[in-house]
């Protein structure tokens, strides 16, 4: 038995199958489907979650590695200003990358890497948006970073 702590709730998880990634555990076993799968290969950022406050790719993390860590997913954000800023700046279209973008952006604030637009662009570049909402994402992150 592994215990996954997600958004403050402890979930006992039978991980007889060690291949289960954190992403699949969240989506398939805990029905926390807000975290998205865009590639399952660590290349798109759609699966970004926080592990003890740091952003990680849930598709490159085995669920079994997460015993004792605090995982935060999009469902665990409580009306974070970033969410509101994303809506007002129309920082998404299809919305599929959005959970990952927001988790990355929230982590970015803590990393002190949102000081300039160039920094925001650079450090948000692990999160692909195929709909191409990039400039609006930068605007949303910039606004929240300024007001933080």
């Amino acid at each position, binding site marked *: 038995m592994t215990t996954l702590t997600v958004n403050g709730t402890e979930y006992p998880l039978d991980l007889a*199958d060690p*291949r*289960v990634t954190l992403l*699949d555990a969240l*989506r*398939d076993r805990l*029905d*926390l*489907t*807000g*975290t*998205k*799968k*865009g*590639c*399952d*290969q660590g*290349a*798109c950022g*759609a699966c970004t979650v926080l592990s003890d406050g740091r952003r990680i790719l849930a598709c490159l993390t085995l669920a079994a590695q997460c015993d004792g860590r605090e995982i935060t*997913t*999009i*469902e665990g*954000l409580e009306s974070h200003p970033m*969410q*509101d800023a*994303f*809506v*007002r700046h*129309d920082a*998404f*279209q*299809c*919305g*599929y*990358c*959005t*959970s990952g973008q*927001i988790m990355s952006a929230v982590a970015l604030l803590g990393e002190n890497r949102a000081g300039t637009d160039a920094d*925001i*662009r*650079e450090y*948000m*570049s*692990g*999160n*692909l*948006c*195929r*709909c*191409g*909402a*990039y*400039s*609006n*994402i*930068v605007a949303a992150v910039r606004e929240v970073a300024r007001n933080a």
Partner: protein
Amino acid sequence: MTTIQQPRILGAGVNRVDGPLKVTGQARYPNDFNLPGMAYAAVVRSTIPSGRIRRMDTTAAEKSPGVLEVITHENADHLGEAPPSFVKNPQPPLQDDVIRFYGQYIAVVVADTQQNATAAARRIEVEYDRHEALLDPHDPRAERIKDPWGEDTAWGDVRTALNRAPVMIDQTYTTSENTNNPLGLFTTVASWDGDTLTLHDSNQWPNMIQQVVAAMFGVPRDAVRVLTPFVGGGFGAGLRCWSHIPLAVMAARHVGRPVKLELTRPEMFTGLGHRTASINWIRLGATRDGRLTAIEHESLTTLPLDGDEYEPCSSVSTWSYASPNVTTRDQQVRLNIPWTNFMRAPGDAQGNFALESAIDELAWEVGLDPLEIRLLNYAEVDPKTGRPWSSNALRQCLEVGARRFGWSERNPEIRSMRDGHELVGYGVAGVSFFWYQQPCSARVIVKGDGSAYVRSAVTDIGTGTYTIMAQLAAGLLGLEVDQVEMQLGDSSMPVGTAAGGSGLTAALGSAVHDACGRLIQKFVDLAGTDPFSPLANVPFEDIEVSEGRLFRKGEPTRGESLARILAVHGLTELSADGNSTPNSPEQLGMTPAGARGARFVEVRVDEDLGRIRVARIVTVNDGGRILNEKLARSQILGGTVGGVGMALFEETVTDKDTGRIANATFGDYLIPVNADIPDVHIEFVGEPDAFNPIGVKGVGEIGLVGVAPAIANGIFHATGKRIRALPITMDMLMD
């Protein structure tokens, strides 16, 4: 009551109504559905491009942990033919042993978990009889299809005009294969209940999926329900019923449980089609002062062995600029490749790159400013028919864009502008996009409390349909936006058309417009049966709506609220259906002009390394009436990003010997990331279009078109190197 009122609602940049669901992870995409007892499927794909399956050994897979079923062509259900929509749909999978391309589905494995299904799928062993594959578009054995859509065009006498032209440009422009790659992994969750079937499915056209699946599985159309309230993008990828869909349905039937089939990223490259590569031959004839006398444009694009595709690259040359002599011809060649398919601005993206590069070359040849040559050759009327345009603000796009960009500060000499070790170039391109609309229907319902909802079986792939249709209906019914809910993404709703071809807003918007008109008529009729109603005996033409009330024009107090009319008549709701069909250009005596646009880019090229950077972009577009500027800007921004991808990064590489796509991951197939995208200035010009009652022209695709040639033209200005092939990579710029 046929005009659009409430301009404060229409056009207003209201926030996306589905935004809160998307920023909280609550919007449910097809792969977010986990049904009780659901099993998971994994596909097996061919590893040769052409031949036959000699033998398949599924024993190890069948014995693999958790496996419920393995389906190959040997035990697959015999399925009915796939009916075409406006294009062909792939014929049912696993019906024979023939391999037509590398990556074709040859088996599906169903297991209790995704991990078990995926592991078992790897244990299937296949022996093939290989045939020689057709992979090169120039292979003389490959079938060539001339004039595939009967749209080859000719007027005037291009031969003579070219022979006599004092100036001529004769060049070949090529574009690479691109893959749509919506971020959402296309998924089908299929669940049978007796003879009825429910699908949670990634697509752009639920009624089409419904029809194709019903035909394949021999059940009535009504027995199939396709649900797509959210989809993780499409860009054209969801406009056909791809083979994984019937595979999931078949698998669910075999195991008697719901089945989820989620494609992997590499499978998204072979399973959903991609933008065809193109070769464009262009000959321009012109006077010495740069006036076009002849345009000849031919194109060659690719097809899979058994599919079709509408990719008329040369068509842009029939409507973009005025020329007395024009010939366009398109050809397709069939190869052993995965399906070619629509991708944001099919045909236009490639054809426009060719034409706008050639026009730029002509400008340099005659010594004219590249902006001026486009204004000089502006087509005042439809050059093909001589009919007036339904609207056309291309000239304004170019002029406004030039001002915003500061085009006048450009030094006309090549290699004349630099910043440190970077060469700076300014590039421009014009865009004349096509017009497209399909029939569509919608139902509008007003409820007892005076609020309303609209239903149509369409999808919102991120374009904003939820929002703009709520705005439109609110505007037409005199309600606030938050009083109207748009419901969509369910095939059991009134029949909707595809979210494609930049035509949904016109098609659905016109249907909503029709339904709202009929609904108000119903309210007026109803009020008329009540002798005490202040609206009794008021003719329909004299009715206005505002703030949820109907009243007599000019007499705001002489009226009644929608809610009250319902209450007086003891009704809980009142609804009306609306339809739209495209108008006919002949009847209206005008040519429907699609959106128009202009792109201005500043590129910077590292002189030593050839590294290319787009420093800023100005994009000005005429999209007719803009229903929501905030969302329309997002469409243009997204298109612009796609255009940068097409120009500088995106190339689906097929191995010439095996037919295998060699870069089918996000690590290898490059799409623009945040740091690749500079400041983008977006602006709209133009007026409501005269061709449909709501005055819109779609803006879903045009943003992409013209970005690539503007970048290529800017690179020429910066470096003096004319690159006629996309994507433009740094090796092409190194000496």
